C-alpha cells in the first residue's frame, strides 16, 4: 500500500524507461548529497560560530580564489556530466521512428482520437502490442496538446499545423494513463486516455474483433472519391493533375526547381495548401481543402495515397 506513494516505484515500461529511472535516481542521490553537505556545514557553522560562543575566529580564510576555482570547476564538471547523461537518453527517446506499425493520433479539445491502419478507430484509448515499436503520427485539430504517458516516461507536444511522429514501445502488458500535459482549455484535466499494451496474440484478437468493414486506406479511398479528388487525379481525367500511384516516398520536382520527398507532411501540405509546393509541369489549379476536412479525414487520405505507393502508375 505505502509503496504506491513512492515515486518511480513502478519501473518505466518503455525500453529506455529504466534509463530514465536510473537518471532520476542518480540526480536524486547527487543532489541529496550536495544538499546534505550544505545543510550540515550551515548547521555546523551556525552552532559553532553563534554570537555568544567563545571560539577561535582568527585567521579566517583571507585568500578565497583557490576555493572559488575549486567549486566552480567541480560544479562545471558535474553539470557537464549530467548534461551528457541526460542528452544521451534523450536522443534514444526521440530516435527517428522506424517505419514499422503506424498508428494515427488526432488530438482535439478534449479527446484523443486514434486510428489504426486497419481502420479500427478508438477514442481516448490506444491499444498496442508489446515489444514492438509503434510509430505514432500525431496531429492536432485545434490548439497545442501534449501526449504524455508517464509509464513510458514519454511526452511530446502535438502542435496544430504539422505532423509529429514519435516512436513508442511498451515492454509489459497493462493499462497505463494517457494525459494531456499541455494546457488546452476548459476540460484539459479531462482529456485523459488509456494506453492498453497487450501481448501480440491479444492484440491481434483485439484488432480482429474491432475490425471495421474497411481499412483506413479504404476509408481514404472512399473519401477520395467523395471529395472529388479522383476527378482530376485518376487516369481517365481530362484535367492535367499529378498521378498519385507510386508517389509516396519518392522525390517530387517542384515548379520552383527544388525537390521534396513525398512524405506525410508533403501530402498534408499539398491537400491543405496546394499552391505552396506545386509539382513541376503542373498548373496550380487544385483548390485548397483547408477547413473542408478535419485532421482525421486528412489522415485517411494520406493513408490512401500511401497505400498507392506500391501500385504501378
Amino acid at each position: 500500500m505505502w509503496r504506491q506513494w513512492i515515486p518511480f516505484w513502478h519501473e518505466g515500461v518503455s525500453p529506455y524507461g529504466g534509463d530514465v529511472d536510473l537518471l532520476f535516481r542518480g540526480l536524486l542521490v547527487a543532489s541529496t548529497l550536495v544538499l546534505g553537505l550544505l545543510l550540515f556545514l550551515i548547521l555546523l557553522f551556525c552552532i559553532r560560530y553563534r554570537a555568544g560562543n567563545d571560539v577561535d575566529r582568527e585567521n579566517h580564510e583571507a585568500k578565497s580564489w583557490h576555493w572559488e576555482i575549486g567549486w566552480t570547476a567541480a560544479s562545471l564538471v558535474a553539470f557537464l556530466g549530467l548534461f551528457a547523461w541526460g542528452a544521451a537518453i534523450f536522443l534514444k527517446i526521440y530516435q527517428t521512428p522506424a517505419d514499422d506499425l503506424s498508428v494515427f493520433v488526432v488530438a482535439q479539445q478534449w479527446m484523443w482520437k486514434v486510428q489504426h491502419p486497419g481502420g479500427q478507430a478508438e477514442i481516448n484509448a490506444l491499444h498496442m502490442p508489446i515489444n514492438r515499436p509503434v510509430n505514432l503520427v500525431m496531429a492536432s485539430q485545434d490548439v497545442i496538446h501534449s501526449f504524455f504517458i508517464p509509464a513510458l516516461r514519454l511526452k511530446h507536444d502535438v502542435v496544430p499545423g504539422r505532423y509529429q511522429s514519435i516512436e513508442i514501445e511498451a515492454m509489459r502488458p497493462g493499462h497505463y494513463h494517457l494525459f494531456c500535459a499541455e494546457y488546452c482549455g476548459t476540460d484539459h484535466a479531462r482529456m485523459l486516455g488509456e494506453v492498453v499494451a497487450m501481448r501480440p496474440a491479444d492484440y491481434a484478437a483485439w484488432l480482429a474483433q474491432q475490425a471495421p468493414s474497411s481499412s483506413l486506406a479504404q476509408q481514404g479511398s472512399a473519401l477520395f472519391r467523395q471529395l472529388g479528388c479522383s476527378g482530376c487525379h485518376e487516369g481517365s481525367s481530362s484535367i492535367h493533375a499529378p498521378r498519385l500511384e507510386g508517389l509516396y516516398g519518392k522525390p517530387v520536382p517542384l515548379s520552383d526547381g527544388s525537390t521534396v520527398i513525398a512524405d506525410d507532411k508533403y501530402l498534408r501540405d499539398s491537400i491543405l495548401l496546394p499552391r505552396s509546393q506545386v509539382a513541376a509541369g503542373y498548373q496550380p489549379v487544385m483548390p485548397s481543402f483547408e477547413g473542408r476536412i478535419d485532421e482525421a479525414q486528412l489522415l485517411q487520405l494520406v493513408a490512401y495515397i500511401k497505400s498507392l505507393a506500391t501500385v504501378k502508375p
Partner: protein
Amino acid sequence: MTGKNYLTDDYRLGSWFTTTDHKRIAILYFATLIFFFFIGGVAATLIRIELATPGPDVVSADTYNRLFTMHGIIMVWFFLIPSIPNTLGNFIVPLMIGARDLAFPRLNLASWYLFVLGGSVTLFAIFMGGIDTGWTLYTPFSTLYSNSYVSVAVTGIFIAGFSSILTGLNFIVTIHKLRAPGLTWYRLPLFIWSLYATSVILVLATPVLAITLVLLTAERLFGVGIFDPRIGGDPLLFQHLFWFYSHPAVYIMILPGMGVVNELIACYARKKIFGYKFVAWASLAIAAAGFLVWGHHMFVSGQSLTASLVFSFMSFIVAVPSAIKVFNWTATLHKGKIRFDAPMLYALAFIGLFTIGGLTGLFLACLAFDVYATDTYFVVAHFHYIMVGGMVTAYFGGLHYWWPKITGRMYPEYWARAAAILIFFGFNLTFFPQFVLGAEGMPRRYHVYAPEFQIWNVLSSGGASVLAIAYLLPMFYLAYSLFFGARAPANPWGATGLEWQTSSPPPRLNFDRQPVVDGDPYDYAHAPEPQHV
C-alpha cells in the same frame, strides 16, 4: 531628532501622489504590491481548496482555469517582478550609493503610475470575467480559441512592462552616474550589483515581451495571425519570443533576492562576504547567460533536437554562477559571529529553499528527465521553491532588515522569528509534496485528478493553510510596530553600508551632507556593535 524626515516632510495626501522622492514612491509601490499579493494569494487559496479532493467540488473547470491564470499573471507581473526592485530597491539603492535620489525621479513616479494603470486594466479583465489561458498565453489557444478577456489582460501586462523598463533604466543610470565620491564598483554592496544585473534584464528582455503581446493582440483582435498555423504561422515562434523574456524574468525575480541575502548574511555573520568579486560577477554572469537558456521550456514542444541539446547545455552552464553564490554564502558563515535575528532566519531559509529549487532545476535541465517531468507538478514545485521559497523569503528578510530604516520603528523580534519559522515549515509542507506528485506524473493545470494523487495534494493543501497564516502574521505585527514599535536608531544592526549612516527614517534628500567612501564594503571588523532597543 531634529528636522523633518521624508515621512513628515509634507502630510497632505496629494504630496504622496505627486512625490518624486524615491522613498515615498517605494512606499507607494509597497502598498500596491501588498494589494496584488493578497489577490494572488486568494486565488492560490481557492486553488488549493479545490485540489484537496480529486473531484470537482468547489469551483467549475472554467473557474479553476481562470483562478490559476489569475494567480500566475498577478503574482509574476504584479508582485514578483516588481517586488524587491521597486520597493526595497527603490528605497535603498540611492541610500546605499550615497545619492540624493534616483537619476530620473519623475520617471520613477511615472513608472509607478504605469504600474497602477497596468494593474488596474488587468484587474478589470479579471472582474469582467477573467482570462483562462494560463500565464504563458500560448497560441493558438490564446488567439483563436479562448473566450475570455485575453486582450484586456494582455494590455494590462503590456503597460506594466513599460513600468519595468523605466525602473530598470533608472537603476542602471543611477548606479553608473550617481555613486558617492570614492564608491568604486568593487566597493559597492552586492545588493547594488544584483539590482544592476536585474536592471539589465528588465531593459533588454521586457521589450521582447511587449512586441510579442502586440503580435498576440493583433492576431486575436484583427485576425492578423502571425502565429496562426492555418496560414503557415508557427505557434512555436510565439513560445520562443515569450520565453526569451520569461526565462530571464525568472532571474529578475531571483537576483534581487540573492542581493538582499548578501546584505543579511554579511550583517548577521559580521563578516565580509566570502569571495566578494566572484559573487558580484556571478550576478552579471547569471543576467547575461540567463538569455541563452530559454529553450529549456520547450524540450517537448517540437523544437529541433539540436536546439534542445544546445539549450540544455546552456542551462547547466547558467547553473554554475548560482552554485558559486550558494557556496560563498556558506563559506561566509565560517568563523563568523552569527546572530539569529529574524532577517537572518529568512536568509538561512532562503539558502536552503533556493538550493532545493536550484538542484531540482538541474533535474529539469537534464533532457531525458525533463521529457518526463515538464508540465507536471515537478515543475510547479521547482519554480515555487525558486520564486516563493527564494524570492518571497528574501523579500520578507529584506523587509524586516530595512524596516527600521524605512519606518523609523523597530518590529517585535519574537513575533518576527516565529513568523519566519512558520513560513519555512508551511512552505515546505505546501510545495515538497508537489515534487512527489510531479515525479508520479501528475500534470499541472489539472482541475480534477486521478485518486492516487490525493494524499500528496491533501498534504500540500494543509501546508498552504499554514503558509497563508504565516504570511498574514507579519502584516499584523508590522502594522502594530508602525504605531507602538520602539523608535529605531540610525543603525540598529551595527551594519555597514551608507544607508545606515543617515537617520531612521532618512531626511527628504537622504543625507544631510554628501557621504564619502574610502574603504571596502562589509568592513565588519570596524563596524559598530548592534544596539537592540
